[in-house]
Protein backbone atom coordinates (compact mmCIF):
# COMPACT_ATOMS: atom_id res chain seq x y z
CA UNK A 1 0.00 0.00 0.00
CA UNK A 2 2.72 2.42 1.07
CA UNK A 3 4.86 1.18 -1.82
CA UNK A 4 2.03 1.78 -4.22
CA UNK A 5 1.65 5.30 -2.96
CA UNK A 6 5.34 5.94 -3.29
CA UNK A 7 5.42 4.57 -6.82
CA UNK A 8 2.48 6.73 -7.75
CA UNK A 9 3.99 9.90 -6.35
CA UNK A 10 7.58 9.34 -7.36
CA UNK A 11 7.10 7.63 -10.72
CA UNK A 12 8.28 10.60 -12.69
CA UNK A 13 11.57 10.44 -10.86
CA UNK A 14 11.99 6.74 -11.45
CA UNK A 15 11.19 6.94 -15.12
CA UNK A 16 12.95 10.10 -16.25
CA UNK A 17 16.59 10.89 -15.53
CA UNK A 18 17.01 14.21 -17.27
CA UNK A 19 20.10 16.35 -17.42
CA UNK A 20 19.05 19.96 -17.24
CA UNK A 21 20.96 22.54 -19.23
CA UNK A 22 21.13 26.24 -18.63
CA UNK A 23 19.42 28.30 -21.32
CA UNK A 24 22.77 29.91 -22.13
CA UNK A 25 24.51 26.60 -22.60
CA UNK A 26 26.46 26.51 -25.86
CA UNK A 27 26.42 23.22 -27.72
CA UNK A 28 29.62 22.29 -29.51
CA UNK A 29 30.07 19.59 -32.15
CA UNK A 30 32.45 18.78 -34.98
CA UNK A 31 29.76 18.79 -37.63
CA UNK A 32 27.54 21.69 -38.68
CA UNK A 33 24.39 22.18 -36.63
CA UNK A 34 21.93 24.74 -35.42
CA UNK A 35 19.69 24.90 -32.41
CA UNK A 36 15.94 24.64 -32.79
CA UNK A 37 13.26 26.00 -30.49
CA UNK A 38 9.62 25.01 -30.68
CA UNK A 39 7.23 27.18 -28.75
CA UNK A 40 4.51 24.65 -28.23
CA UNK A 41 2.42 26.41 -25.61
CA UNK A 42 2.89 29.22 -23.09
CA UNK A 43 5.74 28.16 -20.83
CA UNK A 44 6.50 25.11 -22.94
CA UNK A 45 9.52 25.36 -25.15
CA UNK A 46 11.05 22.32 -26.80
CA UNK A 47 14.73 22.53 -27.64
CA UNK A 48 16.34 20.58 -30.42
CA UNK A 49 19.52 20.16 -32.40
CA UNK A 50 19.55 20.09 -36.16
CA UNK A 51 22.60 18.58 -37.84
CA UNK A 52 22.53 19.51 -41.48
CA UNK A 53 24.15 18.52 -44.75
CA UNK A 54 24.43 20.65 -47.85
CA UNK A 55 22.40 18.26 -49.94
CA UNK A 56 20.70 15.83 -47.57
CA UNK A 57 19.03 12.66 -48.79
CA UNK A 58 16.50 12.98 -46.01
CA UNK A 59 15.96 13.54 -42.34
CA UNK A 60 16.20 11.36 -39.26
CA UNK A 61 14.02 12.55 -36.39
CA UNK A 62 15.62 10.99 -33.32
CA UNK A 63 13.72 10.39 -30.07
CA UNK A 64 16.21 9.58 -27.34
CA UNK A 65 16.00 7.41 -24.23
CA UNK A 66 14.97 8.34 -20.69
CA UNK A 67 18.29 9.74 -19.52
CA UNK A 68 20.45 12.86 -19.90
CA UNK A 69 19.75 15.31 -22.74
CA UNK A 70 20.40 15.88 -26.44
CA UNK A 71 23.81 17.26 -25.49
CA UNK A 72 25.13 13.71 -25.11
CA UNK A 73 22.67 11.89 -27.37
CA UNK A 74 23.83 14.05 -30.25
CA UNK A 75 26.90 11.91 -30.61
CA UNK A 76 24.74 9.28 -32.30
CA UNK A 77 23.68 11.75 -34.99
CA UNK A 78 26.87 10.98 -36.87
CA UNK A 79 25.76 7.38 -37.50
CA UNK A 80 23.13 8.76 -39.89
CA UNK A 81 24.84 11.99 -40.87
CA UNK A 82 27.69 9.99 -42.42
CA UNK A 83 25.22 8.67 -44.98
CA UNK A 84 24.25 12.20 -46.02
CA UNK A 85 21.20 12.49 -43.79
CA UNK A 86 20.20 15.45 -41.69
CA UNK A 87 19.42 14.60 -38.09
CA UNK A 88 17.12 16.35 -35.63
CA UNK A 89 17.15 15.43 -31.94
CA UNK A 90 14.74 16.95 -29.46
CA UNK A 91 14.59 17.03 -25.70
CA UNK A 92 11.40 16.09 -23.90
CA UNK A 93 9.92 18.48 -21.34
CA UNK A 94 12.30 18.99 -18.45
CA UNK A 95 15.26 17.59 -20.36
CA UNK A 96 18.17 19.81 -21.43
CA UNK A 97 16.78 23.24 -22.24
CA UNK A 98 13.23 22.06 -22.83
CA UNK A 99 10.65 23.36 -20.41
CA UNK A 100 7.19 22.33 -19.31
CA UNK A 101 5.56 19.91 -16.94
CA UNK A 102 5.64 16.30 -18.01
CA UNK A 103 2.69 14.10 -18.81
CA UNK A 104 2.24 11.61 -21.59
CA UNK A 105 -0.47 13.38 -23.53
CA UNK A 106 1.32 16.71 -23.72
CA UNK A 107 4.68 15.14 -24.44
CA UNK A 108 3.20 13.30 -27.40
CA UNK A 109 1.60 16.52 -28.57
CA UNK A 110 4.97 18.29 -28.32
CA UNK A 111 6.53 15.73 -30.61
CA UNK A 112 3.69 15.98 -33.09
CA UNK A 113 4.24 19.75 -33.11
CA UNK A 114 7.92 19.23 -33.86
CA UNK A 115 7.08 16.77 -36.62
CA UNK A 116 4.67 19.19 -38.25
CA UNK A 117 7.31 21.90 -38.31
CA UNK A 118 9.79 19.56 -39.94
CA UNK A 119 7.33 18.38 -42.57
CA UNK A 120 7.31 21.93 -43.91
CA UNK A 121 11.05 21.64 -44.56
CA UNK A 122 11.40 18.10 -45.88
CA UNK A 123 9.30 15.95 -48.18
CA UNK A 124 7.53 13.61 -45.81
CA UNK A 125 8.62 10.50 -47.71
CA UNK A 126 12.22 11.48 -46.90
CA UNK A 127 11.63 11.62 -43.16
CA UNK A 128 12.60 8.64 -41.00
CA UNK A 129 11.52 8.43 -37.38
CA UNK A 130 13.95 6.83 -34.99
CA UNK A 131 13.05 5.95 -31.43
CA UNK A 132 15.49 4.57 -28.95
CA UNK A 133 14.34 2.77 -25.81
CA UNK A 134 11.81 5.10 -24.13
CA UNK A 135 11.81 7.17 -27.33
CA UNK A 136 10.40 4.19 -29.22
CA UNK A 137 7.01 4.95 -27.69
CA UNK A 138 7.01 8.53 -28.96
CA UNK A 139 8.34 7.44 -32.33
CA UNK A 140 5.57 4.85 -32.78
CA UNK A 141 2.86 7.33 -31.92
CA UNK A 142 4.17 9.96 -34.32
CA UNK A 143 4.61 7.38 -37.07
CA UNK A 144 1.05 6.15 -36.58
CA UNK A 145 -0.39 9.65 -36.99
CA UNK A 146 1.71 10.65 -40.01
CA UNK A 147 3.26 9.25 -43.18
CA UNK A 148 7.03 9.06 -42.74
CA UNK A 149 9.27 6.92 -44.91
CA UNK A 150 10.23 4.43 -42.20
CA UNK A 151 9.92 3.93 -38.50
CA UNK A 152 13.02 2.58 -36.75
CA UNK A 153 12.78 1.31 -33.20
CA UNK A 154 15.99 0.73 -31.26
CA UNK A 155 15.55 -1.53 -28.21
CA UNK A 156 11.81 -0.79 -27.87
CA UNK A 157 9.23 -2.09 -25.41
CA UNK A 158 5.92 -3.79 -26.22
CA UNK A 159 4.33 -1.15 -24.07
CA UNK A 160 5.70 0.79 -21.16
CA UNK A 161 3.55 -0.89 -18.52
CA UNK A 162 5.22 -4.23 -19.28
CA UNK A 163 8.67 -2.79 -18.65
CA UNK A 164 7.69 -1.56 -15.21
CA UNK A 165 5.70 -4.69 -14.33
CA UNK A 166 8.78 -6.78 -14.88
CA UNK A 167 10.60 -4.89 -12.14
CA UNK A 168 7.64 -4.48 -9.77
CA UNK A 169 5.61 -7.67 -10.27
CA UNK A 170 3.96 -7.34 -6.88
CA UNK A 171 2.37 -3.94 -7.50
CA UNK A 172 -0.76 -3.04 -9.49
CA UNK A 173 1.41 -1.18 -11.99
CA UNK A 174 -1.33 -0.93 -14.56
CA UNK A 175 -3.35 1.36 -12.29
CA UNK A 176 -0.54 3.35 -10.78
CA UNK A 177 1.44 4.19 -13.87
CA UNK A 178 0.60 7.48 -15.56
CA UNK A 179 2.73 6.70 -18.61
CA UNK A 180 1.38 3.89 -20.75
CA UNK A 181 3.15 4.45 -24.06
CA UNK A 182 1.13 1.85 -25.94
CA UNK A 183 3.54 1.05 -28.74
CA UNK A 184 1.68 -2.22 -29.27
CA UNK A 185 -1.52 -0.30 -29.95
CA UNK A 186 0.05 2.41 -32.11
CA UNK A 187 2.05 0.04 -34.29
CA UNK A 188 -1.20 -1.35 -35.65
CA UNK A 189 -1.84 2.02 -37.27
CA UNK A 190 1.65 2.56 -38.67
CA UNK A 191 1.52 2.40 -42.43
CA UNK A 192 5.17 2.62 -43.30
CA UNK A 193 7.65 -0.21 -42.95
CA UNK A 194 9.02 -0.57 -39.43
CA UNK A 195 12.50 -1.81 -38.58
CA UNK A 196 13.17 -2.98 -35.07
CA UNK A 197 16.72 -3.49 -33.86
CA UNK A 198 17.31 -5.21 -30.54
CA UNK A 199 20.23 -6.85 -28.75
CA UNK A 200 19.80 -10.49 -27.77
CA UNK A 201 21.32 -9.81 -24.35
CA UNK A 202 19.32 -6.72 -23.45
CA UNK A 203 18.64 -7.03 -19.73
CA UNK A 204 16.59 -3.87 -19.30
CA UNK A 205 14.09 -4.55 -22.07
CA UNK A 206 14.40 -8.17 -23.18
CA UNK A 207 14.24 -8.87 -26.91
CA UNK A 208 10.96 -10.66 -26.24
CA UNK A 209 9.26 -7.24 -26.36
CA UNK A 210 10.42 -6.75 -29.92
CA UNK A 211 9.53 -10.29 -30.94
CA UNK A 212 5.98 -9.64 -29.83
CA UNK A 213 5.87 -6.28 -31.58
CA UNK A 214 7.01 -7.95 -34.76
CA UNK A 215 4.09 -10.38 -34.59
CA UNK A 216 1.65 -7.48 -34.70
CA UNK A 217 2.29 -7.03 -38.40
CA UNK A 218 4.88 -9.54 -39.64
CA UNK A 219 4.83 -8.25 -43.22
CA UNK A 220 5.52 -4.68 -42.33
CA UNK A 221 7.81 -5.10 -39.35
CA UNK A 222 11.35 -6.42 -39.69
CA UNK A 223 13.21 -7.43 -36.55
CA UNK A 224 16.99 -7.31 -36.66
CA UNK A 225 18.70 -9.13 -33.82
CA UNK A 226 22.14 -8.05 -32.72
CA UNK A 227 23.74 -11.19 -31.32
CA UNK A 228 25.24 -10.41 -27.92
CA UNK A 229 24.01 -6.81 -27.93
CA UNK A 230 22.88 -5.21 -24.67
CA UNK A 231 20.58 -2.28 -24.04
CA UNK A 232 23.12 0.49 -24.42
CA UNK A 233 25.84 -0.76 -26.71
CA UNK A 234 24.34 -1.52 -30.11
CA UNK A 235 26.44 1.07 -32.03
CA UNK A 236 29.57 -0.77 -30.97
CA UNK A 237 28.48 -3.69 -33.16
CA UNK A 238 29.36 -3.62 -36.87
CA UNK A 239 25.98 -5.26 -37.51
CA UNK A 240 24.28 -2.13 -36.22
CA UNK A 241 26.06 0.08 -38.75
CA UNK A 242 25.43 -2.46 -41.46
CA UNK A 243 21.73 -2.19 -40.67
CA UNK A 244 21.79 1.62 -40.76
CA UNK A 245 23.68 1.58 -44.05
CA UNK A 246 21.26 -0.87 -45.65
CA UNK A 247 18.30 1.27 -44.72
CA UNK A 248 19.76 4.65 -45.65
CA UNK A 249 21.45 3.71 -48.91
CA UNK A 250 18.30 2.97 -50.78
Amino acid sequence: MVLSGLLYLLQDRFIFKPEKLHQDFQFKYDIPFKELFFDVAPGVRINGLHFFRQAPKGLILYFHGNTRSIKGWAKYAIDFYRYDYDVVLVDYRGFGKSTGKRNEKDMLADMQFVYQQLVTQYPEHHILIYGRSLGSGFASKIASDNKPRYLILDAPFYNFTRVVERFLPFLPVKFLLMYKLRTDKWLRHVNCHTYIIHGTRDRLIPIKHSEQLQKINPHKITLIRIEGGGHNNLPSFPEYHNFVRDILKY
Partner: protein
Amino acid sequence: MVYGLLGIGIYYLQDYLFFHPAPLRREERYQFTEPHREVNIAFNDSANINIVQFSTAAAPKGIVLYFHGNRKNIAWYARYAPDFTRNGYEVWMIDYPGYGKSTGPLTEHRLYAYAEQLYKMAAAKMGKDSIVLYGKSMGTGIAAWLAARKNCRQLILETPYYSMTSLAAHYFPIYPVNDMIRYKLPSYQYLQEVIVPVTIIHGTADGIIPYSNARKLLPVLKSTDRFISIAGGSHNNLSEYPLFHQTLDSLLAK
Protein backbone atom coordinates in the same frame (compact mmCIF):
# COMPACT_ATOMS: atom_id res chain seq x y z
CA MET B 1 53.07 31.02 -68.57
CA VAL B 2 54.78 30.06 -65.33
CA TYR B 3 51.46 28.71 -64.11
CA GLY B 4 51.11 26.56 -67.21
CA LEU B 5 54.65 25.26 -67.12
CA LEU B 6 54.39 24.44 -63.45
CA GLY B 7 51.06 22.78 -64.08
CA ILE B 8 52.52 20.62 -66.81
CA GLY B 9 55.39 19.85 -64.48
CA ILE B 10 53.04 18.75 -61.72
CA TYR B 11 51.11 16.61 -64.14
CA TYR B 12 54.10 14.76 -65.51
CA LEU B 13 56.02 14.59 -62.31
CA GLN B 14 53.14 13.62 -60.02
CA ASP B 15 54.58 10.15 -59.54
CA TYR B 16 57.82 11.68 -58.32
CA LEU B 17 56.02 14.09 -56.06
CA PHE B 18 53.80 11.53 -54.39
CA PHE B 19 55.80 8.33 -54.49
CA HIS B 20 59.33 7.73 -53.31
CA PRO B 21 59.96 4.04 -53.92
CA ALA B 22 63.26 2.28 -53.48
CA PRO B 23 63.36 -0.87 -55.61
CA LEU B 24 65.25 -3.95 -54.47
CA ARG B 25 66.57 -6.87 -56.52
CA ARG B 26 64.74 -10.16 -56.06
CA GLU B 27 67.88 -11.90 -54.81
CA GLU B 28 68.58 -9.40 -52.05
CA ARG B 29 68.01 -10.73 -48.56
CA TYR B 30 66.21 -8.78 -45.91
CA GLN B 31 68.26 -8.32 -42.76
CA PHE B 32 65.51 -8.24 -40.18
CA THR B 33 66.23 -9.39 -36.64
CA GLU B 34 62.53 -10.17 -36.11
CA PRO B 35 61.39 -13.66 -37.14
CA HIS B 36 59.73 -13.40 -40.52
CA ARG B 37 58.87 -15.11 -43.75
CA GLU B 38 59.12 -13.60 -47.20
CA VAL B 39 56.44 -14.42 -49.75
CA ASN B 40 56.32 -13.56 -53.43
CA ILE B 41 53.14 -13.97 -55.39
CA ALA B 42 52.79 -13.56 -59.11
CA PHE B 43 50.05 -11.03 -59.80
CA ASN B 44 50.32 -11.92 -63.47
CA ASP B 45 53.07 -12.99 -65.91
CA SER B 46 55.08 -9.87 -65.42
CA ALA B 47 54.19 -8.43 -62.03
CA ASN B 48 55.32 -9.68 -58.64
CA ILE B 49 53.90 -8.86 -55.21
CA ASN B 50 56.38 -9.02 -52.37
CA ILE B 51 55.14 -9.58 -48.84
CA VAL B 52 56.97 -9.95 -45.55
CA GLN B 53 55.17 -11.75 -42.73
CA PHE B 54 56.51 -10.97 -39.28
CA SER B 55 55.53 -13.76 -36.94
CA THR B 56 54.86 -14.05 -33.24
CA ALA B 57 56.46 -16.35 -30.70
CA ALA B 58 53.18 -17.97 -29.63
CA ALA B 59 50.14 -18.76 -31.78
CA PRO B 60 48.97 -15.40 -33.17
CA LYS B 61 45.73 -13.71 -32.11
CA GLY B 62 45.32 -12.44 -35.61
CA ILE B 63 47.00 -10.77 -38.53
CA VAL B 64 47.63 -7.08 -39.08
CA LEU B 65 47.76 -6.13 -42.76
CA TYR B 66 50.07 -3.16 -42.87
CA PHE B 67 49.84 -0.68 -45.73
CA HIS B 68 52.88 1.51 -45.49
CA GLY B 69 53.60 5.06 -46.55
CA ASN B 70 55.08 6.39 -49.76
CA ARG B 71 58.74 5.96 -48.89
CA LYS B 72 61.31 3.36 -49.93
CA ASN B 73 59.98 -0.15 -49.19
CA ILE B 74 59.16 -2.72 -46.50
CA ALA B 75 62.74 -2.64 -45.19
CA TRP B 76 62.12 0.95 -44.08
CA TYR B 77 58.87 0.18 -42.29
CA ALA B 78 59.98 -3.10 -40.70
CA ARG B 79 60.98 -1.13 -37.61
CA TYR B 80 57.29 -0.81 -36.74
CA ALA B 81 56.63 -4.57 -36.81
CA PRO B 82 57.31 -5.08 -33.06
CA ASP B 83 54.43 -2.69 -32.23
CA PHE B 84 52.13 -5.45 -33.45
CA THR B 85 54.02 -8.68 -32.82
CA ARG B 86 54.50 -7.91 -29.14
CA ASN B 87 50.73 -7.62 -28.91
CA GLY B 88 50.36 -11.13 -30.25
CA TYR B 89 49.54 -10.21 -33.83
CA GLU B 90 51.42 -11.24 -36.94
CA VAL B 91 52.02 -8.28 -39.18
CA TRP B 92 52.12 -8.68 -42.94
CA MET B 93 53.66 -5.83 -44.89
CA ILE B 94 53.19 -5.43 -48.60
CA ASP B 95 55.19 -3.44 -51.12
CA TYR B 96 53.39 -1.43 -53.78
CA PRO B 97 54.36 -1.73 -57.47
CA GLY B 98 57.88 -0.37 -57.93
CA TYR B 99 58.60 -0.53 -54.21
CA GLY B 100 61.12 -3.08 -52.92
CA LYS B 101 60.65 -6.32 -54.78
CA SER B 102 57.14 -5.65 -55.99
CA THR B 103 56.81 -4.89 -59.68
CA GLY B 104 54.20 -3.72 -62.12
CA PRO B 105 52.75 -0.38 -63.18
CA LEU B 106 52.02 2.00 -60.32
CA THR B 107 48.36 2.87 -60.70
CA GLU B 108 45.60 3.38 -58.16
CA HIS B 109 43.89 0.31 -59.52
CA ARG B 110 46.99 -1.80 -58.92
CA LEU B 111 47.36 -0.52 -55.38
CA TYR B 112 43.89 -1.86 -54.63
CA ALA B 113 44.38 -5.08 -56.56
CA TYR B 114 47.55 -5.94 -54.65
CA ALA B 115 45.86 -5.13 -51.36
CA GLU B 116 43.04 -7.49 -52.23
CA GLN B 117 45.54 -10.29 -52.90
CA LEU B 118 47.09 -9.71 -49.51
CA TYR B 119 43.68 -9.85 -47.87
CA LYS B 120 42.79 -13.11 -49.61
CA MET B 121 45.98 -14.68 -48.33
CA ALA B 122 45.20 -13.62 -44.78
CA ALA B 123 41.56 -14.71 -44.98
CA ALA B 124 42.73 -18.15 -46.10
CA LYS B 125 44.77 -18.47 -42.95
CA MET B 126 42.60 -16.87 -40.26
CA GLY B 127 39.02 -15.86 -39.55
CA LYS B 128 38.02 -12.52 -40.98
CA ASP B 129 37.37 -11.04 -37.58
CA SER B 130 40.99 -11.72 -36.67
CA ILE B 131 42.25 -9.50 -39.47
CA VAL B 132 43.18 -5.94 -38.58
CA LEU B 133 43.72 -3.44 -41.39
CA TYR B 134 46.35 -0.81 -40.73
CA GLY B 135 47.28 2.09 -42.97
CA LYS B 136 50.06 4.58 -42.51
CA SER B 137 50.04 7.86 -44.40
CA MET B 138 49.61 7.07 -48.11
CA GLY B 139 48.60 3.51 -47.19
CA THR B 140 45.52 4.76 -45.27
CA GLY B 141 43.51 5.17 -48.47
CA ILE B 142 44.28 1.60 -49.49
CA ALA B 143 43.41 0.21 -46.06
CA ALA B 144 40.15 2.19 -46.07
CA TRP B 145 39.29 0.87 -49.53
CA LEU B 146 39.77 -2.67 -48.30
CA ALA B 147 37.80 -2.12 -45.08
CA ALA B 148 34.88 -0.78 -47.10
CA ARG B 149 34.71 -4.03 -49.06
CA LYS B 150 35.90 -6.83 -46.84
CA ASN B 151 35.13 -8.07 -43.37
CA CYS B 152 37.71 -7.43 -40.74
CA ARG B 153 38.04 -6.80 -37.02
CA GLN B 154 38.91 -3.13 -37.18
CA LEU B 155 40.60 -0.44 -39.20
CA ILE B 156 43.43 1.71 -37.85
CA LEU B 157 44.65 4.76 -39.75
CA GLU B 158 47.86 6.52 -38.82
CA THR B 159 48.10 10.05 -40.25
CA PRO B 160 45.35 9.68 -42.87
CA TYR B 161 44.18 12.16 -45.49
CA TYR B 162 40.66 13.13 -46.55
CA SER B 163 41.55 12.16 -50.10
CA MET B 164 44.71 12.26 -52.16
CA THR B 165 43.08 14.94 -54.29
CA SER B 166 42.39 17.16 -51.30
CA LEU B 167 45.99 16.77 -50.23
CA ALA B 168 47.22 17.76 -53.69
CA ALA B 169 44.90 20.75 -53.56
CA HIS B 170 46.56 21.73 -50.32
CA TYR B 171 50.00 21.69 -51.94
CA PHE B 172 48.99 23.21 -55.27
CA PRO B 173 46.10 25.44 -54.33
CA ILE B 174 45.81 27.28 -57.63
CA TYR B 175 45.63 24.21 -59.86
CA PRO B 176 42.61 22.16 -60.89
CA VAL B 177 44.11 19.13 -59.18
CA ASN B 178 40.94 17.13 -59.57
CA ASP B 179 41.64 16.74 -63.26
CA MET B 180 45.39 16.60 -63.01
CA ILE B 181 46.07 14.02 -60.34
CA ARG B 182 45.65 10.41 -61.40
CA TYR B 183 45.51 9.15 -57.82
CA LYS B 184 42.26 9.96 -56.07
CA LEU B 185 42.33 7.65 -53.05
CA PRO B 186 39.07 9.11 -51.68
CA SER B 187 39.27 7.84 -48.11
CA TYR B 188 36.27 9.90 -47.06
CA GLN B 189 34.12 7.94 -49.49
CA TYR B 190 35.48 4.60 -48.39
CA LEU B 191 35.10 5.38 -44.70
CA GLN B 192 31.38 6.00 -45.22
CA GLU B 193 31.08 2.34 -46.12
CA VAL B 194 33.08 0.96 -43.24
CA ILE B 195 30.98 -0.71 -40.54
CA VAL B 196 33.77 -2.05 -38.31
CA PRO B 197 35.41 0.15 -35.63
CA VAL B 198 37.78 2.79 -36.98
CA THR B 199 40.56 4.51 -35.07
CA ILE B 200 42.47 7.46 -36.46
CA ILE B 201 45.75 8.64 -34.93
CA HIS B 202 47.10 11.98 -36.08
CA GLY B 203 49.66 14.49 -34.82
CA THR B 204 48.51 18.08 -34.39
CA ALA B 205 51.76 19.40 -35.89
CA ASP B 206 51.81 17.18 -38.98
CA GLY B 207 53.61 19.08 -41.74
CA ILE B 208 53.02 16.52 -44.52
CA ILE B 209 49.35 15.65 -44.11
CA PRO B 210 47.90 18.59 -42.19
CA TYR B 211 45.93 17.81 -39.07
CA SER B 212 43.08 19.86 -40.52
CA ASN B 213 42.96 17.61 -43.59
CA ALA B 214 42.47 14.53 -41.40
CA ARG B 215 39.88 16.30 -39.23
CA LYS B 216 37.74 16.65 -42.34
CA LEU B 217 37.11 12.93 -41.96
CA LEU B 218 35.10 13.43 -38.74
CA PRO B 219 31.72 13.63 -40.51
CA VAL B 220 32.14 10.12 -41.92
CA LEU B 221 33.23 8.46 -38.68
CA LYS B 222 30.72 6.52 -36.60
CA SER B 223 29.64 7.38 -33.06
CA THR B 224 31.87 4.66 -31.68
CA ASP B 225 34.93 5.46 -33.81
CA ARG B 226 37.84 7.32 -32.29
CA PHE B 227 40.06 10.15 -33.44
CA ILE B 228 43.19 10.26 -31.31
CA SER B 229 45.04 13.55 -31.53
CA ILE B 230 48.67 13.48 -30.51
CA ALA B 231 49.50 16.95 -29.27
CA GLY B 232 52.66 18.19 -30.96
CA GLY B 233 53.09 15.01 -32.98
CA SER B 234 54.31 15.38 -36.55
CA HIS B 235 54.13 13.09 -39.56
CA ASN B 236 56.88 10.59 -38.87
CA ASN B 237 57.37 10.64 -35.13
CA LEU B 238 54.10 9.43 -33.62
CA SER B 239 55.79 6.28 -32.37
CA GLU B 240 57.85 8.46 -30.02
CA TYR B 241 54.71 9.33 -28.06
CA PRO B 242 53.43 7.08 -25.26
CA LEU B 243 49.82 7.84 -26.27
CA PHE B 244 50.47 6.28 -29.66
CA HIS B 245 51.58 3.00 -28.10
CA GLN B 246 48.87 3.03 -25.44
CA THR B 247 46.31 3.40 -28.19
CA LEU B 248 47.75 0.59 -30.29
CA ASP B 249 48.14 -1.71 -27.30
CA SER B 250 44.56 -1.24 -26.18
CA LEU B 251 43.25 -1.71 -29.72
CA LEU B 252 45.19 -4.93 -30.11
CA ALA B 253 44.52 -6.22 -26.59
CA LYS B 254 41.02 -7.34 -27.54
